[in-house]
């Protein structure tokens, strides 16, 4: 059951004189849910964005299903990104398109599927995230939780091999977090491979196959939720976990 689906090696990124990512390596197996935790500025978001090259890494290599990604080749890069779904903290729905069109546009314009067929697929994906009744609504008419669910549907419609979630609930009101978490939980239950940055420790520990603690651009420690939250080896990991547990509640 341990087929690596995504492998990253030594990803590094520097902005000016500041190294925001210092050689991060990670192997993700099919069905894994890796959770990235760590303080703000640890490089979690940069790591996720380097994985699909929204931020161009200065160094490092990425393999998807044993094929190395040649990200300087535009065609290869676009083909690779189709297979890697991305969920942003602030949703980034296309503001001029309604929910249905947001989910459909990738199918039509990237995959070249006919409008009708793409529309049917989009409706199914929106149904799956519980938005059957909001197909015609525009982003400005949706709540934050609904927007994030549309963006998940938009990513799912592309049939991604792996999903990257960059603090998907950080911009949400507390009472809206649950609806997004339940969608992500369903995804995990259906075997979707995911890498997610989050501060929601309770959610992370109940779901993660592995917790990855980052600080200062480095992966400091990784392990099962049990290990990281209860018996972390590194003092910084322990400090961070106890602080964040105080803030966001119990780890269980």
């Amino acid at each position, binding site marked *: 059951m341990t087929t690596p689906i995504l492998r990253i090696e030594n990803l590094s990124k520097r902005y000016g004189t500041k190294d925001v990512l210092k050689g991060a390596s990670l192997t993700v197996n099919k069905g894994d849910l890796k959770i990235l935790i760590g303080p703000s500025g640890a490089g979690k978001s940069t790591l996720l964005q380097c994985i*699909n090259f*929204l931020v161009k890494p200065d160094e490092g290599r990425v393999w998807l299903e044993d094929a190395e990604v040649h990200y300087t080749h*535009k065609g290869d890069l*676009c*083909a*690779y*990104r*189709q297979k*890697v*779904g*991305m969920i*942003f903290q*602030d*949703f*980034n*729905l*296309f*503001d*001029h398109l*309604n929910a249905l069109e947001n989910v459909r*546009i*990738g199918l039509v*314009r*990237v995959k070249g599927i006919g409008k009708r067929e793409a529309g049917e697929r989009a409706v199914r994906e929106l149904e799956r995230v519980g938005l059957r009744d909001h197909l015609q*609504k*525009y*982003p*400005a*008419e949706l709540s934050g939780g609904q927007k994030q669910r549309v*963006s998940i549907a*938009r*990513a799912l419609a*592309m049939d991604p091999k792996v999903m990257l979630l960059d603090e998907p609930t950080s911009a949400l009101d507390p009472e809206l977090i649950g609806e997004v978490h339940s969608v992500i939980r369903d995804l995990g239950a259906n075997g979707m491979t995911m890498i997610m940055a989050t501060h929601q420790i309770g959610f992370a520990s109940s779901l993660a196959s592995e917790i990855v603690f980052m600080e200062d651009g480095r992966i400091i420690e990784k392990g099962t939720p049990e290990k990281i939250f209860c018996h972390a080896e590194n003092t910084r990991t322990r400090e961070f976990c106890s602080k964040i547990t105080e803030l966001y509640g119990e780890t269980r």
Partner: protein
Amino acid sequence: MPESLIAITDALPYLIEGAGVTLIVVAGAMVLGLAFGVPLAIGQVYGHPALRRTIGVIVWFFRGIPLLVLLFLFYFGLCTALDINLSAFTVAIIVLGLISSAYQSQIFRGAILALPEGQFKAARALGMSDLKAIAFIILPQALRLSVPGWSNEYSIILKDSAVAYALGVAEIMARAHFVATRTYQQLPLYLTAGVIFLVLTYLGTKGLRILEEKVRIPGYSSQGV
């Protein structure tokens, strides 16, 4: 009926015909400005540094030289030197269009830069090429944001088009001048010309306001809060 009113009623059909000419010149210039302004804006925002500098120079050129100078330069200068046979009417549209493309490119550039960075990122994350992202995600939003700026641009071109009189284009001003010098009714005739421009400005900006409302993205207000 006083002489001045007679002069106006006599000249009105002739002046309104001129308004038709003015409107064609303005519409032609706006469309030309749109056709060139969009690629200029895209090039200036997303292009290679050398391209950006080149576009910067083009914009500087067309915004920096007075309209009258450009009209003479093209019509009497370039057309003669290169032995090109273009009517004054055509030259007026081309020159006004080129100037407008410089101004419109800056309207579009501002609109593109006003869009959240995340829109482009999300498009790329779906696997869109930069060209597709610009065509299907960036431009549809940027053009909507540009409509209020267009309203400004329309009223400026409309008034600038009167300068085409200097080339002998039979637009409103040329006709008003023609009649005024023959009837010696300068005051009523230039006043009428001014009123026609006011009406055209009103109709055009009103029309663009309707367009703005029509293409408005649901959930966004065009009224402010």
